[in-house]
């Protein structure tokens, strides 16, 4: 799975060489960012339910979606946020790619679910929720980067 160290190791293995100095530099670089990532993951885990509910409430407020589906929407948003939590931990987009994006969009479409609703929810989390009240600036940047990645993938 794509994460901080595996990309470096895969490349070294493909070339049949030992990890080089530049590989160590890149691993070190991802470890330097790891503190912010792990903080973001930790804070997100504690606010997962809160963020989900705020976002889904906001999406359903204007009445353009069927209220009956609301709990399923909550489940899915919760699922995606959990995958973002995993991505923050791994330092790569592996978990979102493998468990959230490949195939997931097709599933959403085939069941005639509005992807726009998901996108609205994540944009709400990114722009409206005061994330900086729960985590530091750097952690927030890491979290928002992954939200952007997910929004682009679903769009």
């Amino acid at each position, binding site marked *: *799975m794509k*994460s*901080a*160290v*595996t990309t*470096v*190791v*895969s490349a*070294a*293995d493909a070339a*049949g*060489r*030992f*990890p*080089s100095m530049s*590989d*160590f530099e890149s*691993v*070190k670089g991802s*470890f330097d960012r*790891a*503190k912010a990532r*792990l903080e973001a*993951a*930790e804070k*997100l*885990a*504690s606010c*997962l339910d809160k963020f989900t509910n705020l976002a889904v409430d906001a999406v359903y407020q204007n009445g353009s979606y069927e209220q009956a589906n609301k709990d399923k929407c909550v489940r899915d948003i919760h699922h995606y*946020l*959990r995958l973002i*939590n*995993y991505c923050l*931990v*791994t*330092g*790569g987009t*592996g*978990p979102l790619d493998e*468990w959230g994006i490949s195939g997931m969009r097709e599933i959403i479409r085939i069941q005639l679910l509005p992807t726009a609703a998901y996108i609205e929810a994540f944009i709400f989390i990114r722009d409206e929720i005061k994330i900086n009240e729960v985590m530091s600036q750097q952690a927030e940047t890491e979290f928002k980067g992954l939200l952007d990645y997910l929004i682009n993938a679903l769009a």
Partner: protein
Amino acid sequence: MLDAFSRTVVSADAKGAALGTEDLANLRKYVADANKRIDATLAITQNVSCIAADAIAGMVCENTGLTQPGGHCYPTRRMAACLRDGEIILRYVSYALLAGDPSVLEDRCLNGLKETYLALGVPTSNAIRAVEIMKIATVAIMTETNTGRKMFKGINSGSGAQCQDIAAEAASYFDLVTEALS
């Protein structure tokens, strides 16, 4: 392939739970030890030929018949293959050590290794002995308990004594190789 981070994630996903404070404690230690881990990996990469060559030479010295006509390391072509394999195993151990997880070693090196050796007629008992010597040498170099000069230059000023934990982890990866071959 997994590393320490993705291993944690995979096991959390099996439970369907997000990773909170308690789960992250081990990873914080992994991050805090990053420099030591890089130094320990450097101890391997800077001494590859030395570790591998010594181990194969040691294996042959204990079994001089190996290089005699009819022995498994005769002619030199087969001896060279032996040295090459020693380096390959070291390479995968260095990957596993850097990643903090043995999956790369298991998936890409050990899976099917014993069967390959049996099919090629490589004596696994000798191979295991060579791996044991590589393990001892690697741990000694990492912890700077080898006789003679300091064998590696890390990116930190830290000494080998601080690499004890990580050297033990490296030893466990060599043990996996031994297990896979026996």
